[in-house]
């Protein structure tokens, strides 16, 4: 399982493990992360995290999605930065206040500070990452995190 860090570099226990495709969405009790494609299977149970592809127009999501406790955005490759803008919309314009998790190939030491600046609050590190170095990076922000023109609305 990939290590999970909070925005200040604390190691977190993953309370929303990814639900395998062949298992039903739980109705209560257990919290899981499910892909957007299974959104219709989510009932009224609020312990669900939703994972969004980076091609989703987050402005068109049903308002109930913004009430979920966790949204996960995906970085399918190291250089594909679409989810940075999705995160900005969710945490800024749409006022999403739950946890915003970054997952995928770009969740690495060299992108953590920028991910955090765009509103991500949890980082599911890529498996090959040095956990301590990543935790330190988040715990000790460099000047790069202190920009003069705050981007986050």
């Amino acid at each position, binding site marked *: 399982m990939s290590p999970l860090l909070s925005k200040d570099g604390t190691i977190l226990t993953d309370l929303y493990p990814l639900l395998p495709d062949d298992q039903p969405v739980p109705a209560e009790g257990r919290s899981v992360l499910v892909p957007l494609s299974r959104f219709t299977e989510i009932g009224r149970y609020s312990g669900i995290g939703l994972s969004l592809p980076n091609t989703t127009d987050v402005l068109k999501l049903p308002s109930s999605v913004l009430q979920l406790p966790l949204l996960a955005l995906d970085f399918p490759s190291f250089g594909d*930065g*679409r989810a*940075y803008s999705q995160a900005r919309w969710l945490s800024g314009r749409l006022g999403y206040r739950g946890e915003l998790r970054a997952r995928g190939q*770009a969740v690495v030491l*060299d992108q953590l500070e920028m991910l955090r600046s765009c509103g991500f609050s949890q980082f599911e590190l890529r498996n090959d990452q040095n956990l301590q170095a990543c935790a330190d990076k988040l715990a000790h922000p*460099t*000047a790069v995190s*202190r920009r003069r*023109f705050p981007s986050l609305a």
Partner: protein
Amino acid sequence: MYRYDQHDQQLVDARVAEFRDQTRRYLDGSLPADEFRHLRLRNGLYIQRFAPMLRISIPYGLLSSQQMRMLAHIARKYDKGYGHFTTRQNIQFNWPKLEEVPDILADLATVQMHAIQTSGNCIRNITSDPFAGAAADELVDPRPYCELTRQWATFHPEFNWLPRKFKIAFSSSTKDRAATRVHDIGIHIVRNAAGELGYEVYVGGGLGRTPIIGLKIRDFLPEPDLLSYCEAILRVYNLLGRRDNMYKARIKILVKEMGLPAFAEKVEAEWATIKDGPLKLKDGDLERMKAQFSQFELDPSAAKDQSYAQKLSEDSAFAAWTRRNLKDHRVPGHKLVFLSLKARGVAPGDVSAEQMDAIADLADRYAFGELRATHDQNLVFTDVRQQDLYPLWQALSALGLATPNIGLLTDVICCPGLDFCSLSNASSIAVAEEIFDRFEDLDYQHDIGSIKLNMSGCMNGCGHHSVGHIGILGVDKKGEEWYQITLGGSSGNDASLGDRTGPSVERAHIADAIQNIVETYLQQRLSEEEGFLACYRRVGMPPFKTRLYAEEAA
């Protein structure tokens, strides 16, 4: 000069430390090569045909003498004793060692320089008019606006992983000297009918494989909204720009495929939600930015000098130089002085370490310790008193920097080509040299008049061939170097893309071909007042084509 504050310096120092760590991790194998490639490109480091190439940022082309001396030091210590000024007002070193690049960056940071975002799919160096602050036809000095934009773009967390590179240029003068219409965003600082300052905004221009002239997305954007509007454009592009094919990933393709109205609608909708947020410029923001630029007093009595007129009448070589290499200054008695980097036997844009040091000394002596790099690969001293022009010319002549050819045929824009670049199909520098030899006779060049000859070694178009009055593009034909010629391009206010003449010509005939084109122009023009571009636009391709391909047909 813009003088760094503590924040600017911390940012640059942090990047040096970060890059040193990234290089270390790459060399010890813990950072994958492909990821290091992305990261080093964002710090201007390419791996080229023979060695790495390091591109150093010169924001809006402005350099101090102290910075120029540092570039000379880097050329000597880490390179082969020279550097290459590019078409984006930056400088490149072609022979640094990978392991030494962190040290080069640390040296640069001591003089408020860096290589941040000079490559990679992010917002690149902000470019502008090399005459900014001094031009006679200027509305306001665009540099504080450029600097604000630079600070917004530097390490912008959201826009560091765009579909493709992103270039922004500013112009604030009647004549566009920054090629704004061939940039991803081109901004013209303007005044509206009510007398308020603001911006005319162009989007979706660019050269490369699919050259496109930018379209106007906004007639007038109020002055405080510069950054929020750029942010809205970038956000729409980051989300919707194509990522399936790198040759279709620039914003120009998105604008073309969506159509300007649909694209503009998205931008305006996004902008409406952020325009009154933290990016809106507040009263005093621009004033503070202006105050961070060094100010200097020009000599109000400079125009009273008599020696300039006397030297002009005494020395015809000096007079010839003044006709081509000087431009009008907004303050009487002062001139803008071009240092031509297009001398015989030198690759366009190349400067040796010795020249750099000497240029720095001359800048201190005659030009308030400042100089500019231009997008056509020359240097400029912007504020020289007329009484200093003669000794300056003598010094520049001794350095090989006074070729009186600015704007003439041998003032060629040219990429590094096959000799350095792994992408190139053809030796652009060698061809530039051949053309130099052919047209060296200055009387002949003066007779031809102002003309822009731009050459690229491949279709990526670093030499801006598509917007040259005459454009030359190197193409590969079964392993041989051939050249495709275009006519009628322009990067000015009347921006246009050149038209292909027809089949490409082989290496042995390229200089003849250019000569045939020039001779056709001389025959066709109505008078000496009709420049090449105007003549071509009037008569069209047929006479040029007929002449160019006549020998083949015969």
